[in-house]
């Protein structure tokens, strides 16, 4: 199989740039589902959901991050991934995530359906569940 064309990707968080370099493929998840991006992808603006972000530096070298909510912008010059959080799986704290998940679940249970409060709690819960899964995957 012919080698894939590399393209530039930058992963930015409010706390600084977390990756900036060439990759051959990105896989992540938008609001509408999982998505894989190769070089020369059609321009896209998408909303990202918490998931495991994979950056393929080559077929065998894959960087993974636990990504929070964010946005992805694909343009002819490269890909820009803007996420609220990006952690290396090894740096996640399982006990801390369990605690956060518990609090989010409690908040969701006590919130009235249809309110902004409920919507926020549901978002938090989904994020911590995803991170917990990634963290436990990394620990196993």
């Amino acid at each position: 199989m012919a080698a894939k064309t590399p393209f530039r990707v930058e992963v930015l968080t409010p706390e600084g740039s977390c990756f900036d370099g060439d990759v051959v493929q990105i896989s992540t998840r938008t609001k509408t589902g999982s998505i894989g991006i190769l070089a020369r992808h059609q321009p896209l603006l998408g909303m990202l959901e918490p998931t495991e972000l994979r950056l393929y530096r080559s077929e065998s070298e894959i960087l993974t991050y636990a990504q929070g909510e964010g946005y992805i912008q694909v343009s002819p010059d490269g890909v820009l991934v803007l996420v609220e959080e990006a952690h290396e799986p090894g740096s996640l704290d399982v006990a801390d995530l369990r605690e956060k998940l518990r609090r989010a679940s409690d908040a969701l249970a006590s919130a009235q359906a249809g309110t902004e409060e409920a919507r926020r709690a549901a978002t938090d819960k989904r994020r911590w569940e995803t991170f917990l899964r990634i963290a436990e995957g990394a620990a196993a």
Partner: protein
Amino acid sequence: MSATQRDVKNRIGSVKNIQKITRAMEMVAAARLRRAEQRIEHLRPYAAAIRRMTRQAADAAGTEITGLPIFHEHESEETVALLLVTGDRGLAGAFNSQIIRAGLRAARGLEDDGRTVRYSAVGRRGVSTLTFRGKDPIGRYVGFTDRPSYADAREIAGELVTAYVDGKADRVEIFYNGYISPLTQEVRRETLLPLQQATILEGGDGDDGDASGDDAASGASHHALVEYEPDADEILARLIPDYVEISIYRALLESTASEHGARMTAMRNASENAGELIEDLTLEMNRARQAEITQEIMEVVAGAESLT
């Protein structure tokens, strides 16, 4: 050595110890200040990118963004939420007290106009002072003012936006120490909600930097071909509340930088003060010693004279 001499010597010793502590605190604050400044720098590219995306999505979206509940001015303004950003620790000059003073003064003004005030506070100092004054803060956010993370800002923004959208507050204001330089901080009072349209559609505070130029050029050429996932309106609906998070995060970072700056200045003054005190005390001790020596010589001379 006489009793006065020993007293003065002890005092010099203790002032020297204090000086060592204040010097160390000054140095720690200086190091942390540099890190806090860097974090403000790190936020810039993210904020600029969010701004660019918002413009792109706003161009493509069919609806006016002003339709979002976060922009709606409530019909009557009965409840105002105030968020006071202080630090977890003291010993930073007027850093904490000036925020609390400004917040309470504003609250008095609002209450005189017949409005209800809901307090929230960041930092142990703010929380404990408000509680002491019987103004129990509803939101208490403590333990991170040395190094606030975006998740902290998201939590605060979440609760404030929720209160606003669900009608528990009709306006949200934030008080924080804006960072100008290590020596200068100013109390800033800003309205967070309803979200000001100006903060989004106009550049304004220098986040854009070089972005606006290439944005105009590239935006026009390929925006018709861009695929939106999900549609632009939905993306826009989530991008806009991010401004509240970013504003709060920036305020937290600036407040942290200001706190370290204020502490550095306060501790430098304390060290200088200790230095002066040591000089004065040393002088006093020398004088006491000289007086004692003179006294002894007088006694010796008097004794010798009585023999002859």
